[in-house]
């Protein structure tokens, strides 16, 4: 892979910088394993949150607040000379922990003194208790929550969860979206988790027609999208127009935009965790559904009868399942024959063992069908049936494994496949499939009051197959399968005012087509708390790897991923990343964050338009990339007007062999990729209107995306070898087929993207539940954001036309919960 001199110099500097970073990292790891005087004095509070039946309460938020005069500054630690901060000083005076899937919580690195503990969870009455923590002590405090009506504003809980992440992670950039947030971002016909993610800072999309998103200069296939911890390869319908997750089944989503810990592997750019909503416990049969212009959906959930649960060896259990189907095919029938439909079935089951362990089962199956194979499809010249979709099933068990130990076991299977079949031409088939079977085990250990350790191992079997055959020749026929062995270890070291996360991940990739190799990924995060723990400075470094890539051409706004495993044709992606920022939670419900980042990528691939068909390894070209920039978030979650404004600045480049030059070997070119949106502003506001109506506004501004401008066009003549002559259509020149000559790659830009969306949602309380009719209007100003320009040099005079993205697009729907 050839690179320019400037790039080599830049990479060398980065490598040197990286070397220094890793040395610092090694020192930090060692330091993290050695107790210091300050750390030895720090204590920890820990415990389990259960409900009155004894079942763990997952995701309960435990807040510990120092009581004034409770021995903070003048306590034993201070007397011992330990720099324990005062309540308003360098260490957090208020700390929050989230109960894990076994209801366990832990707050470490606390200065000795008196703390007021408060536990909150949606659907339960809050509980409080005051405890005194001795120097270096570990105190167990358990809670039993009483179920209550849903009076707690869910958004406040989400704020607390976001804050909990802020307190608990040193390096990760975490942005949470509650289920309610997702439903309030105006969507195309109905709420969409993936579309809602796009309003977060650092996230951009390249067109209205695709939900595929790019995070901080990474490609769309570099985002790890998880449903309850299990990967979903292509979570989109209709080439990216809609996401696959049913919003009624989603309790929230968390985007880790950078700095994610060693426990996450498999992708280099971001992690999107979509969490299933099991529904409220003990509430009988619950349902949610909706009717929109796109589809109808229904989710039903219930507790498993106690006898049945006990027969299954569980203390209690509940489950939820949802169905969705679109009706484009029926709606458009009067005006067009468009035999397309999508279906989704999503299920979630949750059970608790008598020992306090939690067992979950997550399943998803869904797909798209475009069926022109029926005799009635007269308007289409060729009969074909195209279907594509995902299937995923995952089981997970989390529970205690002795004092201070938590074990997490998971096993699952995920696959994505796409196929096109032609009933009349049996020799023609197009298929693309990828599958991943995974088994993982991890353990968290509270080793010391100031030190938490985590480690895990995993094994994955991954396989892909791509086939494109027609007319007796294989345009593509390849596949591979391999084993991915992974292990990680991470340590979190906490002293008052500081949080240090260190970790290392090793992924061994053993494909069938190439020798195996180990990819080592050290991670480091450091956070310095300020303003009594309400603000912090953070810094993180990390190396990230992935062994699967999509060969999809990202310059095409709509497409389906064609997945490819690293092997003899494609290298793994390696990325080194550094980020630093400041974040603050203000008392009035404001959340402010500013973060800068620099990322380098190696091994990214592009389709090789000049590949030699005699050498299958030439089908893709490998390149490198860089991105740097900064994101700002201003968020308000309390008060009558809530929402956020985000601003993102990005510079991204990719360096690849210029295969279109025709020169052999191809020279390298560096260019701005299609997702190099230099400036992106997103604003989401929600506010109440009279009559229990909630209004939502989403404003978006993005600077223009790059494209390659044609500089000339010429006529294409079909050459016939038999006659040695060319032919051209016997028609006017402006309808002749033309070829174009391109200017420098992606050197010009489309106009800025501006869009204003609005929504109105009224909630009507019924005897049986809630009814919420809504109106969404996309692109209220009907601005013609450019999708493509067409340069038509065969016309006289030459003209430029084009196609815009969404016009003003109103939609209505209704949702119900009962």
């Amino acid at each position, binding site marked *: 892979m050839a690179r320019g001199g400037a790039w080599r110099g830049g990479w060398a500097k980065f490598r040197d910088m990286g070397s220094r970073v890793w040395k610092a990292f090694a020192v930090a790891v060692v330091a993290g394993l050695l107790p210091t005087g300050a750390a030895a004095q720090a204590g920890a509070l820990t415990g389990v949150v259960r409900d009155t039946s004894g079942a763990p309460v997952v995701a309960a938020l435990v807040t510990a607040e120092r009581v004034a005069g409770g021995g903070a500054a003048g306590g034993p630690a201070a007397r011992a000379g330990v720099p324990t901060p005062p309540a308003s000083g360098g260490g957090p005076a208020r700390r929050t922990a989230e109960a894990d899937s076994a209801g366990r919580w832990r707050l470490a690195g606390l200065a000795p003194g008196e703390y007021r503990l408060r536990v909150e969870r949606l659907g339960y009455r809050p509980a409080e208790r005051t405890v005194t923590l001795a120097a270096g002590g570990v105190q167990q405090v358990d809670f039993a929550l009483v179920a209550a009506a849903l009076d707690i504003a869910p958004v406040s809980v989400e704020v607390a969860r976001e804050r909990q992440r802020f307190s608990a992670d040193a390096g990760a950039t975490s942005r949470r979206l509650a289920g309610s947030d997702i439903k309030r971002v105006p969507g195309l016909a109905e709420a969409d988790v993936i579309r809602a993610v796009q309003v977060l800072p650092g996230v951009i999309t390249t067109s209205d*027609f695709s939900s595929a998103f790019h995070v901080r200069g990474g490609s769309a296939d570099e985002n790890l999208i998880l449903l309850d911890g299990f990967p979903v390869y292509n979570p989109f319908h*209709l*080439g990216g*127009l809609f996401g696959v997750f049913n919003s009624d089944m989603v309790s929230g989503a968390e985007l880790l935009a950078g700095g994610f810990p060693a426990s996450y592997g498999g992708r280099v750019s971001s992690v999107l965790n979509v969490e299933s909503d099991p529904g409220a416990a003990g509430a009988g049969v619950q349902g949610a559904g909706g009717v929109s212009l796109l589809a109808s959906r229904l989710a039903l959930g219930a507790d498993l009868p106690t006898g049945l649960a006990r027969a299954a060896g569980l203390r209690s259990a509940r489950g939820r399942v949802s169905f969705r189907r679109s009706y484009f095919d029926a709606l458009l029938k009067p005006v067009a024959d468009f035999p*397309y439909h999508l279906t989704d079935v999503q299920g979630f089951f949750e059970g608790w063992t008598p020992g306090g362990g939690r067992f979950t089962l997550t399943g998803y199956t869904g797909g798209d069908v*475009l069926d022109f194979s029926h005799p009635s499809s007269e308007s289409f*010249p*060729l009969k074909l049936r195209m279907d594509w979709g995902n299937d995923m099933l995952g089981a997970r068990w989390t529970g205690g494994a002795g004092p201070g130990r938590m074990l997490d076991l998971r096993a699952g299977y995920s696959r994505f496949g*796409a196929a*096109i079949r032609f009933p009349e*031409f049996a020799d023609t088939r*197009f*298929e693309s499939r990828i599958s991943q079977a995974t088994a993982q085990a991890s353990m968290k250990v509270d080793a010391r009051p100031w030190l938490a350790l985590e480690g895990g191992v995993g094994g994955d079997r991954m396989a892909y197959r*791509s086939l*494109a055959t*027609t*007319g*007796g*020749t*294989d345009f*593509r026929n390849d596949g591979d399968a391999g084993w991915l062995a992974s292990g990680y270890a991470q340590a979190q070291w906490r002293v008052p005012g500081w949080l240090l996360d260190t970790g290392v991940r090793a992924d061994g990739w053993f494909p069938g087509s190439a020798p195996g190799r180990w990819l080592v990924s050290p991670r480091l995060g450091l956070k310095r708390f300020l303003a009594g723990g309400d603000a912090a400075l953070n810094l993180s470094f990390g190396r990230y790897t992935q062994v699967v890539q999509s060969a999809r*051409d990202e310059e095409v706004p*709509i*497409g*389906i991923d064609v997945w490819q495993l690293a092997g003899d044709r494609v290298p793994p992606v390696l990325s080194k990343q550094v980020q630093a920022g400041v974040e603050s939670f203000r008392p009035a419900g404001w959340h402010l964050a500013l973060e800068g980042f620099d990322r380098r990528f190696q091994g990214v691939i592009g*389709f090789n*338009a000049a590949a030699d*068909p*005699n050498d299958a390894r030439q089908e893709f070209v490998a390149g490198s990339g860089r991105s740097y920039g900064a994101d700002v978030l201003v968020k308000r979650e309390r008060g009558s007007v809530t929402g956020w404004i985000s601003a993102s600045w990005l510079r991204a480049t990719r360096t690849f062999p210029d295969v*279109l030059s*025709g020169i*052999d070997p191809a020279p390298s070119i560096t260019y701005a990729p299609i997702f190099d949106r230099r400036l992106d502003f997103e604003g989401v506001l929600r506010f109440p209107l009279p009559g229990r109506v909630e209004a939502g506004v989403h404003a978006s501004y993005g600077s223009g995306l790059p494209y*390659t401008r*044609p500089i*000339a*066009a*010429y*006529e*294409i003549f079909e*050459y016939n*070898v*038999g006659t*040695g002559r*060319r*032919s*051209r259509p*016997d028609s006017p020149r402006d309808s002749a087929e033309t*070829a174009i*000559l*391109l200017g420098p790659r992606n050197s010009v830009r489309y106009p800025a993207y501006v869009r204003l969306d609005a929504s109105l949602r009224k909630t009507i309380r019924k005897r049986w539940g809630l009814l919420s009719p809504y109106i969404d209007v996309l692109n209220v100003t009907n601005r013609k954001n450019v*999708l493509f320009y*067409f*340069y*038509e040099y*065969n016309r*006289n*005079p*030459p003209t430029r036309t084009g196609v*815009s993205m*969404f016009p003003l697009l109103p939609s209505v729907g209704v949702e119900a919960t009962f």
Partner: protein
Amino acid sequence: MLATRLVIALVASAAIGTVGCRLEEVALAPPEDVVVAEVFLQAGEAQQFAFLHRSLGTGALTVPNAVVELTGPDGRVAQYSPAAGIECVNAGSSFLPDTVGSCYATTPAVRSLVSPGATYSLRIRLPGGGQLTGTTTVPGAFRLKRPSVAQCKLAPGTLLPMEWTRSVGAWVYLSETRLAHVRKALDPNATNDRSLDMTGLSISAEDTTIVFPSEFGLFDRFNDKDAPVLLALQKGLPEGVTATVTVSAADRNYVQWVRRGTFNPSGTVQIPSLQGDGTGVFGSLAPARFDLTSVATSPLPPC
């Protein structure tokens, strides 16, 4: 990537067609004036041709007074001379071949200038100054194994598995056929009996087979006029159809020019093999031909 493109075409057109809007027209300044040269060497042919034309919207499309020189492996240089446009482009009712470009040809020779496996260089000196240069290596010689004769018969309603020996250096084998009387043979009431041209592909030097005629016509299956004919040919030819079939081993340059490899909404992008003051292709082909008649009984040998 054909599958991907097909998916893109279908899904994108459906989605964008549903909600996308056409932007208003903006007049553009005249585009760049670029010379496009298309030179394909054919092994075994007595005469070689070069076709030069210009980018659209810049005035005349012809490129007169160019100097085209072909240098062979022995260093000998052959000059191309101006030739009638009809030598390079088939005439049409709405245009004259001499108006869409300029044709140049080598002097006819008893022994072909172009040999399989040899490397040739091309230099084109343009009338306004500047030049284009390129190199091609002609694919190696090969022969048809089935059919092994120049003229043969094929029983109606049967398929012919064609096979040939490997051509060293070939990127693809391009199979072309022109079927005469096929439309009338399939539908006696058809008013149009024009010949049908079909193309088949065998990708890589090792793929030395194709089934005639079912695996031909790949690029016409979306053509609503020809699709029914292609469907009928999946089981063989009807009685009375005659066909000329050419199998050509094609080099890198030819393939990169014709396969149109990358996406741009404004049109096709071709990968050039001529560098310099313009663009174009300098490709080479090594062809083999036979004629076939679809008849039940005939003195011709079977294919």
